[in-house]
């Protein structure tokens, strides 16, 4: 069986290499921040810094956005971040939203799972789109910030001299080589990170033996977007197959190799085509199809011990490799970017001590451990590492149709927002709260009406947060208490991005200024809030602290403590 390959339905723009003004082989301008790696993580860091007015240079080895089969699932939390980065439009326009999936054992459906989704949400729990789309939409946003983001295409790092006061990067391009001086480096250069290797650091953890063939195909089909998992399907007995729909009639098919199968043989088109055809036959897909891309995947659960090495910060796959099952790869990288960007911006601008960057490592290493614990469970089910996991999986699958109590074991444990429960930045609750996001958590979403000069517009709670510290002040009259207005003015006059937004359970059409009307009453209830309650958010939207009867001094102290945070 031989089918001609088709290209991805996407043409990437090519960019030329460029060498800046040099003096004796060294770039004349010294940079505050240099980001190595222009994938989703590097682009997100650059956009996050730009939101705070901080310039960066982005070093990218290739001449365009990526090619091939890579990340395809972007979570609600990532979309919230991407919205703050100014790139959401393309993701929602092109991405395919989805809310759940089905698992089959042989011919029987044994699990129908859904991700959290209700009328309170602004964004879908997940969208599928190809990584070239992800990078393109972020690049489009970055190109609009060309005053702050300087992208150097076709530029590779040859070596790094990392010091306590900065780093020197030796770079090579087709147009010539040069050295670049920088205050800080963000290493987002992927799973085979050059920077990580140059600094002699190693990822530690577990590598799994189970291998999956990953095939992208073009197929016209009206089938809805959901995650499909087939265990021991008649099309491919003894194997496990995953199917995801992507935009533009591209479908991702992952299937597990049997023990002892030779990987080099398995990825040969002659061996792949019949398996795909028999899968499509089983699914009842009769349309013509073409292969686009074939690769092989082995699950890794690996991480660096710390993500900060003096002036070098590691993010994304350069810092950690999480299994694909549960879609935590790109999503955790985007979370890294969101966490590091505001902290680095505050340090560069002199608003925070550089110990704030240690909290990046504390928080994101903890997040990786949580991601790995879920990812490991998913991997042990999807690619059983021993006869025992395999035997128990067969037991679960064969019981699941009649015994709902075992079905949760099949659930793929999709990524969800992480709470920095042990963050050194958190203000421990002084007051008792029966509900609401705890310090370190992200906001639970609810609709609000934003009222300005008597006019209301529908919005959501996350719309109130921005790339600043944000105080959500629960009030009776929709007016910001005068003492908070004074605090906001004082903080901003020190150059610290801060805003305070009054929320009210009632509409106050004649109130001066802006207030958010909790028109469903759910926010006051679910945040256990009453007039006087304040939640303070960090620039990445995580809760810094909350108070029943907050005084401006509480908020001032919490922010000051965070920005000088010590992790000893």
């Amino acid at each position, binding site marked *: 069986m031989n089918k001609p390959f088709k290209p991805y339905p996407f043409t990437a723009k090519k960019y030329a290499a460029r060498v800046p003004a040099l003096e004796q082989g060294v770039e004349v301008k010294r940079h505050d921040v240099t980001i190595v790696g222009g994938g989703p993580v590097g682009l997100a860091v650059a956009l996050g810094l730009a939101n705070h007015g901080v310039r960066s240079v982005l070093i990218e080895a290739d001449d365009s956005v990526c090619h091939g089969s890579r990340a395809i699932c972007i979570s609600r939390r990532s979309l919230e971040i991407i919205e703050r980065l100014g790139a959401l439009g393309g993701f929602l326009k092109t991405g395919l939203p989805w809310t759940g999936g089905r698992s089959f054992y042989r011919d029987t459906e044994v699990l129908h799972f859904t991700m959290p989704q209700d009328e309170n949400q602004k964004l879908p729990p997940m969208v599928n789109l190809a990584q070239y789309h992800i990078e393109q939409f972020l690049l489009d946003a970055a190109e609009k910030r060309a005053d702050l983001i300087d992208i150097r295409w076709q530029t590779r790092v040859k070596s790094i001299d990392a010091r306590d006061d900065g780093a020197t990067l030796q770079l090579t391009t087709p147009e010539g080589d040069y050295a670049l001086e920088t205050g800080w480096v963000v290493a987002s250069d992927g799973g085979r990170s050059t920077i990580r290797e140059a600094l002699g650091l190693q990822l530690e953890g577990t590598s799994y033996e189970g291998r999956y063939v990953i095939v992208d195909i073009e197929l016209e089909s009206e089938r809805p977007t959901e995650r499909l998992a087939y265990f021991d399907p008649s099309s491919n007995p003894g194997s496990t197959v995953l199917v995801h729909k992507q935009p533009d009639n591209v479908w991702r098919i992952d299937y597990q190799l049997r023990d002892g199968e030779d990987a080099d043989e398995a990825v040969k088109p002659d061996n792949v085509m019949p398996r795909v055809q028999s899968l499509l036959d089983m699914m009842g897909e009769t349309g013509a199809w073409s292969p686009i891309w074939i690769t092989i995947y082995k699950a890794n659960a690996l991480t660096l011990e710390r993500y900060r090495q003096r002036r070098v910060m590691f993010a994304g796959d350069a810092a950690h490799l999480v299994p694909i099952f549960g879609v935590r790869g790109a999503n955790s990288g985007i979370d890294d970017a969101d966490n590091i960007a505001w902290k680095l911006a505050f340090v560069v601008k002199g608003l925070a001590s550089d110990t704030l960057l240690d909290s990046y490592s504390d928080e994101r290493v903890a997040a990786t451990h949580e991601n790995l614990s879920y990812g490991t469970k998913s991997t042990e089910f999807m690619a059983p590492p*021993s006869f025992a996991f395999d035997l*128990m999986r067969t037991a679960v699958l*064969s*019981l699941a149709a*009649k015994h709902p109590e*075992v079905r949760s074991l099949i659930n793929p444990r999709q990524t969800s927002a992480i709470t920095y429960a042990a963050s050194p930045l958190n203000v421990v609750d002084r007051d008792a709260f029966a509900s609401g996001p705890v310090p370190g958590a992200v906001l639970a979403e609810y609709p609000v009406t934003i009222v300005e000069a008597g006019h209301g517009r529908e919005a959501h709670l996350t719309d109130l947060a921005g790339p600043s510290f944000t105080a959500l002040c629960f009030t009776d009259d929709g007016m910001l208490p005068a003492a908070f207005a004074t605090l906001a003015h004082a903080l901003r006059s020190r150059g610290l991005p801060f805003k305070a937004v009054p929320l009210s359970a009632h509409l106050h059409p004649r109130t001066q200024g802006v207030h958010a009307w909790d028109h469903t009453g759910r926010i006051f209830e679910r945040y256990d809030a009453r007039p006087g309650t304040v939640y303070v958010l960090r620039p990445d939207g995580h809760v810094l602290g909350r108070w029943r009867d907050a005084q401006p001094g509480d908020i001032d102290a919490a922010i000051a403590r965070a920005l000088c945070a010590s992790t000893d």
Partner: protein
Amino acid sequence: MNDAQLDAVYTRLCKTMTQLGEAKTSLFLARFALLAIGEMDDANVSLRLIDEASDGIAS
């Protein structure tokens, strides 16, 4: 038992069997079944579970 607890028990069971090895796993599972029967202390439930566990294996 919540989902996370079930997950943890499941993983411990798998790891214990992995350590014992395939040859000893049947005996391990038989012993586990006997202990579970003892804990349940209900003949009717035990008999029903024997039927349900065997249901569909032959086919």
